[in-house]
């Protein structure tokens, strides 16, 4: 068993990280905090999950969120998708393993992956609306959010949701407020089977190795860690029984990256755009300097009068 989540402190403790520890800030150029804090990570072991949704409930409770009463849609996944209130969601997949013909109930806790290379942050146009701390947490700063939805386009995992109430984007914070005072995220604290554990990224990788060895010894030869390199690795990782095909876990992307369209939009298009617009403006000024104004001459006026017949009104 992994050492259990610590109990809350009884006295106030200083915050472990804050604004001085930013390594990225949306739509801003900052000097990344140096040295970096130890990277943290949440490890979600899908093979240990019993689908109790304690994590979902704990998330709502800690963040004081209230999900609307929904409808039953034929699946345990409820609500059917992430919402501005449901920052995490158990996604249930009934999958028949073609090798064994066994029904496997795959339960993946969906939510922000806290990418090392965050697409949301790179797409965000509002300065400081998305920040990344040096411990790896990617957080939305709602005071600065303008609700444009660019983060939705930037995210390779389809995570952020825009609230219809206040037009701001919401996603899992990794309980940055809890982690700042030495606590585990609320979901991890609530998990009864330690399917969710929390620690430094290195600890989590090491812990995952043990779990994967165990799974392999029990016949899951493709068991593995989901820490996709296409986004620089993530600070939420999964242990998957079938890591060779993550997409069977309710569409977990295989090798996610920031969309090349987003990269072009946020990269080359800016330089190209300002270059072209600048060129047009400079060409205009230059042409005027060289060619001078195109003036109507007295002769033109006379010709027009002649054409019109010349008689006075």
């Amino acid at each position: 068993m992994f050492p259990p989540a610590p109990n809350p402190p009884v006295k106030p403790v200083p915050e472990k990280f804050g604004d001085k520890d930013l390594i990225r800030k949306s739509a801003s150029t900052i000097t990344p905090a140096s040295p970096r804090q130890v990277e943290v990570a949440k490890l979600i072991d899908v093979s240990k999950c019993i689908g109790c949704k304690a994590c979902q409930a704990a998330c709502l409770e800690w963040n004081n969120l209230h999900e609307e009463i929904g409808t039953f849609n034929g699946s345990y996944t409820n609500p059917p998708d992430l919402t501005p209130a449901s920052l995490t969601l158990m996604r249930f997949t009934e999958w028949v393993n073609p090798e064994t013909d066994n029904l496997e109930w795959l339960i993946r806790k969906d939510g922000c992956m806290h990418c090392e290379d965050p697409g949301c942050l790179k797409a965000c146009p509002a300065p400081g609306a998305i920040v990344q701390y040096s411990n790896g947490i990617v957080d939305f700063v709602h005071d600065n959010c303008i609700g444009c939805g660019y983060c939705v386009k930037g995210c390779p995992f389809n995570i952020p949701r825009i609230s219809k109430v206040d037009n701001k984007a919401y996603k899992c914070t990794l309980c940055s407020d809890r982690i700042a005072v030495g606590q585990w995220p609320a979901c991890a604290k609530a998990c009864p089977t330690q399917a969710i554990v929390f620690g430094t990224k290195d600890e989590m990788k090491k812990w995952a190795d043990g779990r994967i060895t165990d799974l392999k010894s029990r016949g899951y030869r493709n068991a593995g860690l989901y820490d996709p390199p296409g986004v620089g690795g993530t600070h939420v990782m999964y242990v998957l029984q079938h890591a060779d095909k993550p997409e069977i876990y309710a569409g977990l992307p295989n090798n996610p990256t920031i969309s090349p369209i987003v990269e072009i939009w946020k990269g080359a298009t800016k330089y190209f755009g300002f270059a072209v617009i600048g060129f047009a403006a400079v060409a205009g000024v230059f042409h005027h300097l060289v060619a001078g104004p195109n003036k109507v001459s007295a002769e033109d006026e006379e010709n027009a009068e002649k054409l019109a017949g010349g008689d006075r009104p």
Partner: protein
Amino acid sequence: MSKPYDVETGDAVHKGHPIVVDRYTLAARINHWITAISLILLALSGMALFSPKLYFLTALFGGGQLTRAIHPWIGVVLFFSFAGLFFRFWKANLWKSEDGTWLRRIRDVLAGHEERLPELGKYNAGQKFVFWGMSALILVLICSGFVVWDQYFYAFTTIEQKRIAILVHALAAIAIICVWIVHVYAAIWVRGTIGAMTRGQVTGGWAWRHHRKWLRELVRPRPGTPAE
């Protein structure tokens, strides 16, 4: 004889010294300036969201949230306002053989050698390029704009479609700003032009110099029009 393709409602010649030519009706001018103001506001609010370096422009609209909310609505105003201009002006902007000649002599155009250019109707090829360019780009912008107008239309498209739409929207916006620069610069460079969109009138000499075919059509008596 029927009305020439390029003579629009309200175009008329007033004899005098100098001759004054009515080029745009009051309605057309109001229509134009609503479109113009919308386009400028769209460019400012759009660029504010396009580049962090221009984010400060959101202050003009009351902050980021309001900029995000108002930009698409200004787009809707522009679309309908421009539609008005489109139906007023499309016929006079049809391509004619002299436009090809004019384009081939673009060096003379830029050098201001009007005497080497063919006689033109109400619009030259450059103006026609601005007209059709604006028309096509506004269509692209409104369509791609709806795809990324998440507040009301989020559910209708996939995220991948939204990514493509926002790239197309940005590129079309860059293009339309360039067309706008051409439009404004030409109006400034060719002296006597701006009056057409302010007072609605140009001088006879201006019409003679730049749109002689149009001027000839206006002075030619036409059956069915009452004599002055």
